[in-house]
């Protein structure tokens, strides 16, 4: 059964460093998303991506964040200069239909020291 994959599973970085989180969505899906979950809190929407551009982004998704689909398979989230409060679980999701269910990857745990 197709699934969303994410790498790395755990990333530790120093404050101020750039990180790139990688995702491989399900191959025939067209809609891609990033969410984050700070430990013990609810899952929060960051950004959605369709047709090679951002379709919606939340207030959290400021200038420090960017997304890219550099080729036909990968979908990346870049944080340019990490802050302590960026420490969270980051989930990638993909969907085949705009209002249908979204399939989540296993997440990347980001720890900023």
């Amino acid at each position: 059964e197709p699934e969303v994959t994410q790498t790395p599973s755990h990333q530790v970085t120093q404050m101020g460093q750039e990180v790139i989180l990688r995702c491989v969505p399900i191959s025939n899906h067209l809609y891609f998303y990033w969410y984050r979950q700070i430990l013990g809190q609810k899952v929060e929407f960051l950004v959605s991506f369709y047709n090679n551009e951002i379709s919606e982004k939340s207030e959290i998704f400021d200038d420090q964040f960017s997304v890219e689909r550099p080729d036909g398979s990968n979908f990346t989230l870049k944080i340019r200069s990490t802050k302590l409060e960026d420490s969270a679980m980051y989930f990638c999701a993909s969907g085949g239909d705009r209002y249908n269910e979204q399939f989540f990857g296993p997440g990347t745990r980001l720890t900023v020291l």
Partner: protein
Amino acid sequence: AQTVTQSQPEMSVQEAETVTLSCTYDTSESDYYLFWYKQPPSRQMILVIRQEAYKQQNATENRFSVNFQKAAKSFSLKISDSQLGDAAMYFCASTTKAAGNKLTFGGGTRVLVKP
């Protein structure tokens, strides 16, 4: 704006018994979808069940069923014949046509299953 509220931080159930998790939502839209996701200790988000707002029939998926009360904006999840593997955080979520495709999540309910 959408809001999703889960009023029960934690629920405990005896193995083989039934537990019901509450969820209320608020939206002014008529076209929306509701979901329950399970998050085990691995923190993977697993879709349990979905409900289209235009469908009156409550969704069921094996031991999982929902009670969708559209007028009350309520969307509860019932887990029947609870198993040890059902122990997890459960998140209620919604998406609306007007909100595009983003999911709005509730705060979650932790389910403990006692053997």
